[in-house]
């Protein structure tokens, strides 16, 4: 099968998923499902973070970066400071041989 055809098929299974969710906003939902949607970001973000930190071959350094970044975010609520501080801590750990 030619490369561009495979790519277009990949598009054909990705775009509808994105459109479907955006198209369901006017549904009248019971409280349980409204609570469900409130917790989606909490659970999705945690699922994106933890395997990327603990599942990485350099997990120890990333834990250092995540702990420092998380603490900064908690205290300052500044995204830029959290990312920069966490990245600096990661590099400090890496240079220290962690």
């Amino acid at each position: 099968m030619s490369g561009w055809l495979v790519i277009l098929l990949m598009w054909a299974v990705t775009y509808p998923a994105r459109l479907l969710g955006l198209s369901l906003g006017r549904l009248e939902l019971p409280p349980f499902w409204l609570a469900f949607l409130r917790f989606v970001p909490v659970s999705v973000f945690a699922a994106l973070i933890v395997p990327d930190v603990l599942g990485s071959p350099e997990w120890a350094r990333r834990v250092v970066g995540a702990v420092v970044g998380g603490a900064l975010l908690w205290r300052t609520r500044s995204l830029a400071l959290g990312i920069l501080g966490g990245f600096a801590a990661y590099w400090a750990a890496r240079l220290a041989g962690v």
Partner: protein
Amino acid sequence: MTARVVKHKVDWAAFGRGFRVMVPLWAGVVPFAVAYAVTARANGLSVWETCLMSVTVFAGASQFAAAGQFMAGGVPGVASALALVGTTFVLNARHVLYGLSLSRQLPLSRAQRLVAAQFLTDEAYGMVLVAGPRDPGGLSLGFLLGAELSLFAAWNAATLLGALAGAVLPDPDALGVGVIFPLAFLGLLVPLLAGRVAVLVALLSGLGAWGLGQVLPGGLVVLLVGVGGALLGALVSTRAGGRA
């Protein structure tokens, strides 16, 4: 919802603010896109096919997975091509959740949905959901499109760069930029950790995803854990009388 309050004009000031709010994430996106492009080229995709995938599919993890499955020569057989498309579907099904969650707070017209859907990603969803309501104009179409297209522009420019000049660029691992994505999502998660239920859901989802990640591909893990964790949060909070 009866009133058609959906505005049909894009607010360009909000677009600009949405675009800029994603710029710190470029540091994580650019090396990732370059690495994808280098992998795709090494497995026989042409420059234009490598770029076509970034323009159309526009989903990092599944592009990476697919690029690894193209054989030298660029043409997988029918069976492996269909397996590849199936993997893409499963990896990207989580976008249903993002759209559902966003559309509760930002009603869009049909035409707006058709455009916004093409550029929806993990990062844009997260940022728009958290930073959007704090924007001066509130969560708006302009802010959403700005954030979405900011990532799209960076992803595609870096794909082209990687496809043309990949071999002479530094390895992303050498720069340590892999840690930027978890840090960015941590920045989105922390403000949401208000209350014991949210902390519990985050802890169990994170550990569950780590465990499942040993045996399943990442996009599927995010989908399963996203649904499971949100169900848990809904169960606990509605039992507790609506406290979240």
